């Protein structure tokens, strides 16, 4: 018989998107953006899903998360320290409260 591996012990967290009055459940192994897409919610704009384009820029108001590297053109160090992030690069580690729609092409820092 084939060995079966099932996804056990993957925790799921509630994500509240205050500016759009939406909430959804996001697994710990999915980014906030992909979790949102899978839930069918329309709470964050979807772009590249890879931390490059900036479309999914959010501000985290509450909650713990893990982050992967994201484009410095869209999240400066100062922004990173004040809770700005790209939703396609962070993974929830607790319940979260966020604000989406922070993408502004005018503020992109080009080299």
């Amino acid at each position: 018989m084939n060995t079966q591996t099932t996804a056990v012990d993957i925790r799921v967290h509630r994500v509240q998107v205050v500016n759009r009055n939406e909430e959804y459940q996001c697994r710990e192994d999915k980014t906030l953006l992909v979790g949102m897409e899978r839930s069918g919610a329309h709470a964050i704009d979807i772009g590249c899903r890879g931390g490059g384009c900036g479309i999914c820029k959010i501000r985290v108001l509450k909650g713990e998360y893990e982050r992967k590297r994201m484009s410095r053109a869209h999240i400066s160090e100062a922004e990173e320290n004040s809770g700005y992030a790209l939703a396609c690069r962070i993974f929830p580690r607790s319940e979260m409260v966020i604000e989406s729609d922070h993408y502004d092409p005018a503020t992109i820092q080009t080299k």
Partner: protein
Amino acid sequence: MKKGVMRPGHIQLRVLDMKEALEHYRDLLGLIEVETDSQGRVYLKGWTEVDKFSVVLREADEPGMDFVAYKVLNNQVLEQLEQELKEYGCQVEEIPAGELNGCGRRVRFDSPTGHMFEIFAEKEQTGKWGVKNVNPEAWPRDLKGMKATRFDHCLLYGPNIEGTVKMFQEVLGFDIAEQVIDDEGKRPALFLTVGMKAHDVAFIECPEPGKLHHASFFLDTWEDVLRAADLISMEDVSLDIGPTRHGLTHGKTIYFFDPSGNRSEVFCGGDYHYPDHEPVTWTADELGKAIFYHDRALNDRFLTVLT
């Protein structure tokens, strides 16, 4: 008029994570990994390409394109065009031979759209990968993923594409193969060729300078494009749109993203261009159909999602 520029030579892309990038470009697209240089840049190529490499990946904290380069006939042409670029008013920088392993002297220059371009005459020729040059077999057996055959073109976004295109036409001898014209006579999209291909580089007007829309790789058949789409689903890769057909160039295509958010395309087919051909024109009121021939509508991402 032909000025001795032959074809696209290489593109250097910035990625956030090299390991993930290689899973995309090597394992999914099926490019051949050639080598890693002393700066940690990784060189790759499509299996049909004769020159040593055509894609260079550099790890950085901002994805996008560093530069794209075109190969010219010989060193005499290189010197001539270097002179003409200077006279035209470009900022020209000389990159010494060997700065990219196996590549000769490069001439780098800026452009109104904010992109950096290069021309070069010499690159080590290692031949097609996995097949000989005498009595060659049809294809090598050990290809991975989508089995991309070559780096074909890139689509770049920036301000004043007319300015960059004028330079490509007048100095480098590219032709406009296809164009989009709006009712004021402005051209928001221009597709250029330097040979017979439908495009060797394309430009779309956008206020932000120096942006990459996609880097594109050639496949032989529509069946290969569908197979690429299957792989994108199997690997849960970030899909943009497709498989579908473009109106512009009529290529059959699929767009998806690398793990750093740079858009990739694989495509097959498409129109051809000879120097005596008038540009093919799409009117801006049919832009949706020009870009996505079946949907006949742009998705939001096409105009806004860039690196």
